[in-house]
């Protein structure tokens, strides 16, 4: 018997007797013999020690000693030890959704604080308790716009992460939604193209800041043009960059979404991550997902509850704003702990450090013969360089030198085979950058 079930033979006997059956098999008599498994060929169980040894071996087969310059929406930031220490308290991680508020005030307060932090970052009024990831958050925002406007056309800038655009198209395959993609020219969204397509059928315009190529922009004009056409403006953002960049609220956007992985959540091969969403107050009743609100108890004391639940599937079923039930609460907790440690001052400093390191990297890389740094737009901590040959080959060679050099754009964009997208976070040291430059120079001379 496994160490996770406590029953003794005596317990089982007494329990069966109380139930009034002779054996455990009697409890399964509704499952007719014809419905029993044709096979159940699972290896026999092992001890904790044996399983740990074999899984540790698998961990050892992954390389973790590469100096990382890959970003593309998912970033290698330092995670303070207090984040792990607090989020691994089992009073948090072995609880479930705080349906019973009186026994869940810890979770409810933490989510209310998380919602507040997301509102502060984005400059918007309300945030939900989390969605799965940045891509599903963007899809939910697009669907909000469709419901709010009753329109079915969405303009998406090609600077929006291709992974997210692809997800949008997958989710809407069976819905009558028309997507129009507008191009990025020299790193910047083509405003004229957006304007050309904006009309009285447009539900939303979606842009990303910084965009996939790392370029930053002020999209205030895009938001106001969208509003003039009766459409909503949606911005996908990178939260660390918001320590420095103009917020979606300041630009007049209606909904902001993003991937919260950079807020104290490990890269972990793609998940669990954190989708965040904030919007203007007047849109809240169309927002998907759980929301925590403040109220009072019967003595008038402040307390917190899940609220506006008539939007949700467990009440509204097929009429709900979304089908989401489980979310990414533990990742949201990590994010609010991370942001509390950073504070107003720390986040600004961190953003500035990322910016300075990336600018320094640009300055040394453009001196490498054959390399051009794209400088048509300002960037935050990620930028594009053009190599004298296929970026895939260069990346492959750089792996042998100990670097994950960046993301070759040719994988997502036709005609950009020589382009490499590089992220430089606060974790990259001057020494690593110098070594990277030297190695790149050596690889390109080969």
């Amino acid at each position: 018997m496994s160490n996770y079930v406590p029953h003794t033979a005596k317990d089982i006997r007494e329990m069966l007797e109380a139930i009034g059956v002779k054996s455990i098999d009697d409890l399964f008599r509704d499952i007719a013999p014809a419905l029993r498994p044709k096979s159940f060929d699972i290896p026999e169980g092992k001890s904790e020690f044996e399983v740990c040894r074999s899984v540790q071996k698998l961990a050892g087969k992954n390389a973790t000693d590469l100096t990382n310059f890959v970003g593309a929406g998912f970033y290698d930031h330092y995670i303070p030890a207090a984040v792990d220490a607090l989020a691994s308290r089992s009073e948090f991680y072995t609880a479930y959704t705080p349906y019973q508020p009186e026994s869940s005030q810890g979770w409810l307060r933490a989510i209310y604080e998380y919602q507040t932090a997301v509102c502060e970052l984005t400059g918007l009024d309300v945030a939900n308790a989390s969605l799965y990831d940045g891509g599903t958050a963007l899809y939910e925002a697009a669907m909000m716009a469709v419901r709010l406007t009753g329109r079915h056309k969405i303009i998406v800038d090609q600077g929006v992460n291709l992974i997210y655009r692809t997800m949008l198209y997958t989710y809407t395959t069976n819905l009558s939604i028309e997507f129009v993609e507008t191009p990025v020219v020299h790193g910047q969204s083509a405003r004229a193209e957006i304007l050309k397509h904006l009309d009285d059928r447009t539900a939303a315009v979606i842009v990303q800041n910084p965009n996939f190529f790392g370029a930053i922009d002020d999209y205030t004009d895009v938001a106001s043009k969208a509003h003039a056409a009766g459409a909503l403006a949606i911005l996908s953002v990178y939260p660390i960059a918001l320590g420095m960049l103009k917020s979606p609220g300041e630009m007049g956007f209606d909904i902001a979404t993003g991937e919260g992985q950079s807020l104290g959540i490990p890269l972990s091969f793609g998940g669990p991550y954190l989708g965040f969403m904030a919007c203007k107050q007047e849109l809240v009743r169309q927002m998907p997902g759980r929301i925590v609100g403040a109220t009072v108890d019967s003595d008038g004391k402040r307390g917190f509850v899940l609220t506006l639940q008539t939007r949700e599937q467990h009440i509204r079923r097929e009429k709900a704003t979304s089908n989401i039930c489980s979310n990414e609460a533990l990742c949201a907790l990590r994010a609010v702990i991370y942001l509390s440690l950073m504070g107003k001052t720390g986040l600004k400093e961190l953003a500035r450090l990322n910016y300075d390191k990336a600018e320094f990297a640009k300055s040394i890389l453009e001196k490498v013969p054959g390399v051009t740094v794209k400088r048509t737009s300002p960037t935050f901590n990620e930028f594009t360089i053009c190599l004298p040959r296929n970026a895939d080959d260069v990346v492959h060679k750089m792996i042998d030198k100990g670097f994950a050099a960046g993301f070759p754009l040719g994988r997502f964009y036709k005609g950009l085979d020589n382009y490499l997208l590089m992220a430089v976070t606060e974790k990259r040291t001057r020494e690593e950058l110098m070594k990277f430059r030297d190695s790149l120079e050596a690889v390109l001379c080969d």
Partner: protein
Amino acid sequence: MRLIFEKNVEGRRGIKIQAPDVPAAKLPDGKYLRKTAAHLPDVSELDVVRHYTNLSRMNYSVDTNFYPLGSCTMKYNPKFTEALASLEGFTAVHPLLPQLAGGGALTQGSLEVLYHTKKLLCEITGMADFTTQPLAGAHGELTGVMLIAAYHRHHGSRRKYIIVPDSSHGTNPASAAIAGYQVVVIPTDKDGYMNMVEYKKQLNDQTAAVMLTCPDTLGIFNPRIKEITDLAHAVGALMYYDGANMNAMLGKCRPGDIGFDVIHLNLHKTFATPHGGGGPGAGPVGVSEKLVDFLPIARVVKRSDGTFALDYHRHKSIGYIAPFYGNFGVILKAYAYILMLGRQGLIEATEYAVLNANYCRARLKEYYDIPYDRICMHECVLSASRQARNGVRAVDIAKYLIDKGFHPMTIYFPMIVRESMMIEPTETESKETLDLFIETMIEIARLAETDPETIRRAPLTRPVKRLDETRAAREPNLRWRPNGVWQAEAPGN
């Protein structure tokens, strides 16, 4: 207790950021920069640590309390799986690394975990193939419905309707509707089963699929499940299995053997990964042979040389449903759990889960109404309608249980039972724990007759008493503001 934002003191720092080792660069034009800083709290590291440690102590959790929340399978979450998921060899890997030239060789460990998990889940459920990508149960449902649509579209028309019983989880009709289908609801008959007359009447050549939870949300295994499946297949509809209740089925019945075409599993239920206060979970989706080609990309494949790789070249695939390969950290914990329990351990988990639920049902049936009184599977549904006649409703019983140190059962679901109370003890709870809970429930039933007011006053032992949920919804206060409505409380912790 004050919020972390109310602990802000200008000048405090929660982290020391390294001094720059590069020159300060010229800032971009001011139009790109924010004018108002994000007002995050400036607090010390100890402030943060003490704040969230104290918040954690205000929660009930599996590690501190019996947590029989029906339909959620709140079983014990093994600690060794947490340790494995936090190994740097797994946490530090960038998800795009295997997509770089030469990067596949550097991520063999993670790819192997995904591949083997998929294979184990196939054998457990009898399905032909799995995707580990869906990020939660409901996300798995949406993926499953999109697979169903892709299959029908490939055969001419995607069809119009999806049938769900009225006892289904709310996510089933919500997922079907969001994927673009009209939902047809079938009532439950007096025995607790889906009404077959109505089912046959609604089934036609425009039915895309039938979504069933098995055992259903009343905790009952429908003995006519094969007939339901065959009837759907006869009109060309597909069968969807909501695997939320799979903890009752391990080694006892496989959806694939009965003829189901799509299934999602909740790894955070059946396979013991923690619920994390609401997530992350993982909702892998399994399919029968005829749907394999439509599974989302990338597919994790094993090559002839024994190495693992990602395959993006599947032209019939529905596309990307997640940015990468699923909630890897969660999948890894479920993988380690399955390896440790093994064949016999999984069967035992199911057997004792069912034993525990029936024990609760049998010992409580004298005191509470049981709308469908029969052998149940992993959970039992009681009704407080008898107590409600004395003014003690299911919600009152739940609040009184909180004072007694138990996390309440699920209440008011399934909606088809008045004053419903859904108890799912899980296999990891001992007879002593169940006895304590049962005795408390018996005490409540007696109090409901002699002193209902005491129950209605509960809870009295928590940081707050009953909360005004109506006010929360009518006057939404969804974030703290520096000069907000709320006065900061007296400085305490």
